[in-house]
């Protein structure tokens, strides 16, 4: 097939589907309803490291997980979620929360939207272990 047909077809197809999904409201990120849901999300990624406690942030967009092997975070990946242990992270305080930079090519940057008190508490707990 000539590129002059294939290329526009692919570009228009990909962009069209993406715009359509967005307009249909399918870009809403996952929110954890409660701490149990956040724990379940952690357990799904790290069944071998049990969560001792989960602290959900105010809007349910992330949770800080306490384990025997140090802290971890669960956060939304689109409509789903993922999780990482937080060690060797560079932590930066921003006006609306924290940015964690991990030496992990598959999760280089985690942006956490937290209110003021949460930011202080999470930063404290993450830095204690660092």
């Amino acid at each position, binding site marked *: *097939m000539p*590129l002059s047909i*294939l290329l526009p077809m692919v570009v228009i197809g990909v962009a069209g589907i993406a715009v*359509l999904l967005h307009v249909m409201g399918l870009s809403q990120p996952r929110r954890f309803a409660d701490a149990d849901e956040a724990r379940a999300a952690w357990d*799904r990624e790290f069944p071998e490291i049990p969560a001792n406690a989960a602290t959900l942030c105010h809007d349910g967009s992330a949770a800080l997980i306490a384990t025997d092997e140090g802290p971890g975070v669960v956060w939304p990946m*689109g409509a789903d979620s993922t999780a990482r242990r937080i060690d060797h992270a560079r932590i930066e305080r921003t006006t609306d929360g924290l940015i964690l930079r991990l030496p992990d*090519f598959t999760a280089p940057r985690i942006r956490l939207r937290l209110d003021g008190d949460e930011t202080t508490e999470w930063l404290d707990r993450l830095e204690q272990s660092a």
Partner: protein
Amino acid sequence: MSDQITYPDVVNFAVPFFIAAILIELTWIVLKRRGGRYETRDALTSLIMGAGNVASGIALGFIAWGFFLVLWELTPLDLGTSAWVVLLCFVLDDLRYYWVHRFGHRIRWVWASHVNHHSSQHYNLTTALRQTWTGTFTFMMVVRAPLILLGFHPAMVLFCGGLNLIYQFWIHTEAIGKTPRWFEAVMNTPSHHRVHHGRNARYLDANYAGVFIVWDKLFGTFVPEQEHEKPDYGLVHNLGTFNPLRVAFHEWLSIFRDVTRPGLSLRDRLGYAFAPPGWSHDGSRGMTPEIKACHLARHPEDRDTPGFE
């Protein structure tokens, strides 16, 4: 004469059909409120991976093609182009697909390329298009060598491979439950391939089939979808990024980091490149048998059920 035969580049011609089918599946899901899920960034990443796969085929396809032409020069055999030969080629190429796909899950070097097909936590028709950009570097084209040496023309072999990929498109859906019994028995179906995309301990390293599920039954890798255990799609360790470049290259980088660690023996370095995914020199990571054993320790009731036999 048969050196000049050409077959259409079927995968490219299927693009409009892919787009139409995605729109139909999406409409079905929205109207029926069941049968799957779509999310914008996930779907966009899958589609970009698909487009990049076509681009890498255009840019690097000449390497495999050149290799096949050399083999074609070498072989004294020529089976011709009759319909029966094409059919036989399709079946044997599907056997080739089974083994390449099995290597893709059991050899980290090949997994580095194939992992991205499994990196979505969704399972819809866009997931089918989430294809590798780095397939050429796995050198899995050597698995096709016997076919060409047997006298199947390289263009025919690629044509059959293209049809194989197109067949696999429609099975990436949750909108279809089970097909008729006879079809499930012989063919790869949405149900069988959902199992293949499951990260559940039960479903790891199962159902490698392309078109015919009989290969998995023959070689002992078949696990039927269980009514009581829905596949949880994605990777054992799910990605924390939608960036297509990271999706495409992360496992290659991870191999590089492991292989170049200080203080390892040559054997360890080779292990990090070619042993099954999850292998580590100190046993600190888990491969499929360990993941299954961990699961059974927590869920002994699953012992001797499908996927844990």
